[in-house]
């Protein structure tokens, strides 16, 4: 079954770069991009039981600093639902703020990723991370 990554980021440019990067490393991976707060909340409340849902999610990439809602709130909600309890969630941010990093892990994130400004670095990092987490999840 194809891997499925859920990307929650309100920046269209960042999202496109992420999608391109992921697809470049593995074109079979399905990426669902959610941009707005409403879409995110809808997804969380409407999601069915993972055992009967074929559209299961293998990895969530979640931006912390979004315009309409905080990545931390989304993280909390995701971790409170049965379907998403065991899905790896990586928090994305442009900066490394120590208290944000701590908070992310406290709320149940599996990783904190600082997005590099340089695309080459960004590319390399995302590829490695996605490959790693998708493989871990399989096992």
């Amino acid at each position, binding site marked *: 079954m194809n891997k499925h990554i859920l990307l929650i980021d309100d*920046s269209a*440019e*960042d999202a496109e770069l992420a999608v391109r990067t992921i697809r470049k490393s593995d074109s079979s991976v399905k990426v669902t991009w959610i941009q707005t707060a409403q879409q995110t909340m809808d997804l969380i409340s409407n999601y069915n039981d993972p055992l009967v849902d074929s559209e299961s999610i293998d990895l969530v990439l979640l931006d912390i600093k979004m315009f309409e809602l905080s990545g931390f709130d989304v993280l909390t909600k995701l971790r409170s639902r049965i379907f998403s309890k065991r899905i790896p969630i990586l928090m994305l941010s*442009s*900066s490394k703020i120590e208290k944000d990093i701590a908070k992310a892990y406290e709320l149940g994130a599996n990783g904190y990723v600082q997005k590099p*400004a*340089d*695309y*080459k670095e*960004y590319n390399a990092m995302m590829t490695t991370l996605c490959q790693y987490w998708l493989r871990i999840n399989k096992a």
Partner: protein
Amino acid sequence: MFYSIENLVIDKMPTSRFDDQVETMAKIGSWSIDFEKSESRWSLNSFNLHGLDSNKIWTWSAVFNSYEDSTKLKFNDLVNQMIRDHHPISIDLKINQSEKSISRLILRVQALPILNERNECHGMIGVFQDIEDSLNHKNLLLDSERRFKAIFNQSFQFVGLLKADGSLIEANETALDFGGISLESVKGLKFWDTPWFQYKAEGKLQLKKAIQSAGKGRLIRYETEIIGVGGSTLTVDLSIRPILDEKGAVMYLIPEGRDISDKREVHQQLIDLNKELELKVENRTRELQQTNEDLESFAYSISHDLRAPLRAISGFSQILEEEYNEALDEEGHRLLNVIIGNSQKMSTLIDDLLLFSRTSRKEVIRTEINASRVFEAVITELRNENKHNFPIINCDELPIVFADSGMFKQVIVNLIGNAIKYSSKANNPTINVSCKKVDKAYEFCVSDNGIGFDVNNSKGLFQVFQRLHSSKNFEGTGVGLSIVKKIIDKHGGKVWAVGVPNEGASFYFTLPLYYE
């Protein structure tokens, strides 16, 4: 009936030579009047005392003329009074000063009535007495006392006089006024029992002990509180000074109190002012700190927010280059590379700025560091990054320093990195690292034989984004040295540089030996 003696002629009193001599010595002259016989007699010395020639004929009227005007009537009145009530009389007469021939100025005239068997006054006997000298003495004494009293009372300080046992003899008006008491009410009281010292029991006891010590000849001085009229209190600097006689025994004690409430108040005001000032400085410092923090967090968030669009520029231009490679001609590729190159430069700039703001905010955690090791490690790392034309680096044996290890390493990275960069175009690039102890600090020096700089043109060398060389020749953002300065400042050290264009530059920094 009013008896007037004015027209009585004065006869010479028959006296012996002995009598005259005694009278001269005693500065007295005797006289008598017999009203019934209308006779009056003066001894020789009475004439002399008045400066009158005893061989001439005088009446009392002439004598009165030599006295001041007012005395004539007064004398007559007294005589008549004595005739009536038989009381002795005594009057001091001033001899008219215009009468130059008369040397005596004041005579005391005393008289007793002579009574007959019917108890009637029929005459009087009296003496003239020259009281000039005794009067002078008395005046001197009075004057001296007046002067003493003036000083004693005019003083703003509380002054008194005590017997050696502490009983009060005198207190000046300042003290009496303050206490709202009369001298009579406290005279003879032990000083510690006087109203001034009834403020606190321990003050009273302290005074008693002080007076006992002073009574043994010691000067005692201390600060105490006294209480005055209406319960007002004063803080006084009280001294008790013993006055000794020729044999060294204590005769008197002089207590003296200076009001130091004002001084206290001024002192308190000074303390208050200082506190206020400290508070102001504290507030201002806090404001400044806040401003600094605001600026730093501003720098941080700016550099953070700049990263996202930069990532888009860098990302999409690289995607363009990769995916539309063939659609672009040579000029298209060149333009695209300009975009990519600049976005990379900006990315470095933002990273440096972030590092700078992080350095500013970071707390210094000092540990013992082997400076030689740090230099070696940094040089090895940099050698791996700059394989081309890597300079010869001579590093002296360096001391153990007390610094934040991460920050210290950053300083060395930046300084050695700079030295490598700016000496990269020299023929035989060489870097020397040395250290010596100066006063209470280690002074490090990193020097190179590179492009150097003009010291006259080096203002702002350690400020953010200040560069002495264009980035065309030497890459860089102008943040490295400001980070060095920031770190050294935080360690309580100093940083400076000297340079000669095209000959090299030396960068110095100090680290205190001890941190207090």
